[in-house]
């Protein structure tokens, strides 16, 4: 089962669309569009990966070639930061009573689904390049 396998791509697409659906429902069902701020974080999360590369991006990243791996680490740092941001923004909004607890739970579920999708993508990507 490789990343090119259509079943894996289908599961990934399903995960992304379910996550985004939960995110939208969290706004629509509660008639409160504040949680859409999380969209900023969802846009930011893949960017370090795209710009700096990761375990699957360039095969030398694991082996510690010096210049490249410094940027890879910085990219991972930013990815972690924006991933926490996608959980923190709904929590702060709920704490400030701008959104209800139900909306918070739905937003957290969306973050969970999208996070699981990213982990699945990363797992299948690294499985490919690990078979040298």
């Amino acid at each position, binding site marked *: 089962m490789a990343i090119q396998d259509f079943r894996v791509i289908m599961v990934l697409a399903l995960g992304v669309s379910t996550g985004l659906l939960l995110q939208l429902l969290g706004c629509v069902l509660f008639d409160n569009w504040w949680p859409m701020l999380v969209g900023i974080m969802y846009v930011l999360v893949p960017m370090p990966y795209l710009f700096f590369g990761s*375990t699957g991006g360039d095969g*030398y990243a*694991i*082996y*510690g*070639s*010096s210049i490249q*791996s*410094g940027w*890879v*680490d*910085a990219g*991972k*740092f*930013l*990815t*972690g*930061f*924006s*991933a*926490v*941001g996608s959980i*923190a*923004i709904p*929590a*702060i909004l709920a*704490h*400030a009573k701008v959104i209800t607890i139900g909306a918070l739970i739905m937003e957290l579920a969306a973050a969970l689904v999208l996070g699981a999708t990213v982990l699945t993508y990363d797992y299948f990507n690294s499985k490919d390049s690990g078979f040298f």
Partner: protein
Amino acid sequence: MCNLRAEYYINPQVIQWWEERGKMWGPILSGALFGAGWWFWVDAVCINQHKIPFDQYLPGLIATLALIMINCIRRDDLVEIDPFDDASFCRSRLWLFVSYIVSFASIVAAVWVMLAHYAHNADLSPADKWPGAAGIFQVTFILGSGLLFFVSRTPTDTGGYSSF
């Protein structure tokens, strides 16, 4: 000095896991901790009805400065002494020492802010005392993030073959 080797104190399987997998996840976790730290502070600033004065932002800013300082160090300078250049060894250790001092200063400042402005302030309800506790969480998470990033980032200038 050889008594301080990690293999004497930590289960070898843990060390092996760390060498193989932990270093890949370390930077992501440290980014998450850094984010958690600052978002705690943002929460405290948003919830509070009164404006929080700027000097209470300082512990977090100093902790962030400590994070940057500790991660500027090139780790291989600390690992072994280059016999032709004593100065780089001393320089790295001195910078590490100064960054530790800065990080301790941020912890002290956060505790001071919490005690002076919030814990001993009789005319605040318990809910209003959240910024004090949030400051402590913020500083702890940011410093933890800095430490984790320091131990888990890949060393520079090793020539690239150290993991074989």
